[in-house]
């Protein structure tokens, strides 16, 4: 599928439409889809003002950016100098950022227009957007079902046609899984491809920034703008991302992760994934069944490493320097304890306390160190598979979108929704969810493609082929 973003930019530049008309259309769509609760805030005046500036530049014949006039939304854990940045948590309810995230700045430099901020699980802790302090987002296809998460608002904003692309963040599947649940493309780049400066930190060793889009080509375009060092995030590689324009057919070896095609996986999901695999074989690719025995431990590793890291990262929310301070606090201990108690959602508290548990004295070696060693074993297995395969393929999630409230009483059951996305996160691999079909009841299903570290451009070129199959 061709780029929806390029089509909009070309139409604006040729005068068939204007940036103002596109922004008005997006704001109207946001309002029409209000009941989905994809967005926490819209910036009508600022966005229209920015659109007028870009339209004026075009009228004067001046050079405009690659995203001239294209409206977008950012997950509300991206710091923006416009409006609020809440991370969907009470403790940041009134927070107005003094800086823009690097991703926001780079999109602005290309004349994209931020029209609003998207809902998420508070602090990106969750897989359904039900953990938002401001209420859940509804699935774009079925109102009774979850949006997925944690970038649920971003995925729904794109799926509902409000904007052609949205920014998300992915720590263990938070871009790919909501992409799959709503029938849009969700791309998690290699760890370290895009700066996280100005994104509310969750787990620093797996957090990445990425786009949710309608087409793979759009994911490529946005990523091309975001990639590369900014001097603010020391984990970022010098820009290696070079989109592949030569679309000449190549034959790849593709490994089917069979551990994710059997027990516990919804039959419709298996069937739709198998259909993609069959079409790849017909298209001349070599398909192999491969095994990732460490996959069954990936969630256990993840739920040690990630809580450990986020319990440290969330220590900064103390009600002292910014954010909401409890008005009941009489002592400094109360300032911390009561502000954090009122400001965090139950899932935030759960994860922070698990982090404290696995890092606490006497447990560090048994849990945190053990998990980091197990992580090495998982990475070794991936490396071995990539000796013989160009790409790996498996479902993005074990089921289509589940019902709102279905998993909220059992945190472990909720965590299982991430079972297939977490391995690539722990290994820092690029992975993308591409819509591949529907369940019998019409719910979107995504297929996940995983590549070698830094093979992002090749992965996206391959994903374009999968999208066309």
């Amino acid at each position, binding site marked *: 599928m061709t780029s929806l973003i390029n089509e909009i930019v070309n139409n604006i530049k040729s005068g068939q439409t204007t940036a103002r008309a596109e922004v008005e259309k997006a704001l109207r769509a946001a309002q029409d889809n209000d009941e989905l609760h994809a967005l926490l805030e819209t910036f009508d005046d600022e966005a229209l003002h920015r659109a007028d500036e870009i339209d004026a530049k075009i009228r004067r014949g001046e050079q405009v950016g690659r995203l001239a006039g294209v409206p977008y939304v950012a997950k509300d854990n991206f710091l923006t100098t416009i409006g609020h940045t809440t991370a969907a948590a009470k403790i940041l309810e009134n927070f107005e950022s003094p800086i823009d995230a690097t991703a926001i700045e780079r999109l602005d430099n290309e004349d994209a227009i931020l029209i609003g901020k998207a809902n998420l699980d508070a602090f990106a802790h969750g897989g359904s957007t039900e953990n938002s302090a401001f209420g859940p987002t509804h699935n774009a296809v079925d109102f009774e079902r979850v949006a997925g998460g944690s970038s649920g608002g971003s995925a729904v904003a794109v799926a509902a046609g409000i904007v052609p692309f949205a920014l998300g963040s992915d720590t263990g599947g938070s871009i790919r899984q909501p992409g799959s649940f709503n029938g849009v493309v969700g791309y998690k780049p290699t760890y370290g491809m895009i700066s996280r400066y100005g994104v509310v930190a969750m787990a620093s060793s797996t957090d990445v920034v990425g786009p949710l889009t309608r087409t793979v080509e759009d994911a490529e375009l946005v990523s091309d703008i975001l990639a590369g060092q900014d001097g603010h995030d020391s984990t970022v590689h010098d820009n290696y991302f070079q989109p592949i324009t030569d679309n000449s057919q190549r034959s790849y070896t593709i490994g089917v992760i069979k551990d994710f095609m059997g027990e516990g996986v919804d039959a419709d999901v298996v069937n739709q994934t198998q259909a993609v695999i069959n079409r790849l074989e017909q298209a001349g690719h070599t398909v192999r069944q491969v095994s990732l025995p460490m996959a069954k431990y990936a969630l256990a590793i993840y739920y040690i490493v990630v809580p450990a890291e986020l319990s440290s990262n969330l220590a900064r929310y103390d009600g002292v320097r*910014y954010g909401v301070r409890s008005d009941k606090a009489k002592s400094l201990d109360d300032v911390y304890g009561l502000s954090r108690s009122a400001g965090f959602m139950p899932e935030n508290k759960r994860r922070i306390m698990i982090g404290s548990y696995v890092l606490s004295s006497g447990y560090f070696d048994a849990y945190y160190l053990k998990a980091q060693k197990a992580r*090495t074993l998982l990475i070794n297995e991936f490396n071995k598979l990539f000796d013989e395969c160009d790409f790996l393929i498996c479902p993005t999630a074990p089921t289509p979108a589940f019902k709102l409230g279905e998993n909220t009483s059992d945190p472990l059951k909720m965590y299982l929704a991430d079972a297939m996305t977490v391995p690539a996160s722990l290994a820092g691999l690029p992975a993308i969810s591409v819509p591949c079909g529907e369940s019998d009841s019409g719910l979107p299903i995504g297929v996940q493609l995983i590549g070698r570290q830094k093979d992002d451009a090749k992965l996206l070129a391959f994903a374009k082929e999968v999208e066309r199959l």
Partner: protein
Amino acid sequence: MSVSLDEVRHLAALSEIQLSDSELESLATDIGNIVGYINQLDELDTDQVEPTFQLTGLQNVWRDDKIEPQLSREKLLNLAPDTENNQVKVPKVL
């Protein structure tokens, strides 16, 4: 795996979160279940394995040693819930 209420109280103190009794109880159950789940890593022999603490292989990422514009003191103080005389104010500590 069960986690006692005292252990949960200790974790809450380490985490600087004040919790109600009902929260403590439900967290004891949840944390017990989750710890039970993550304990399955015990099945793995990791004695000879090096831990992975970072993924990029990057070392010593330097930037030029030059001063860049920073946020003003005023802007940052404006974010604080309470201030006095250009300082962030908290309840009496000593």
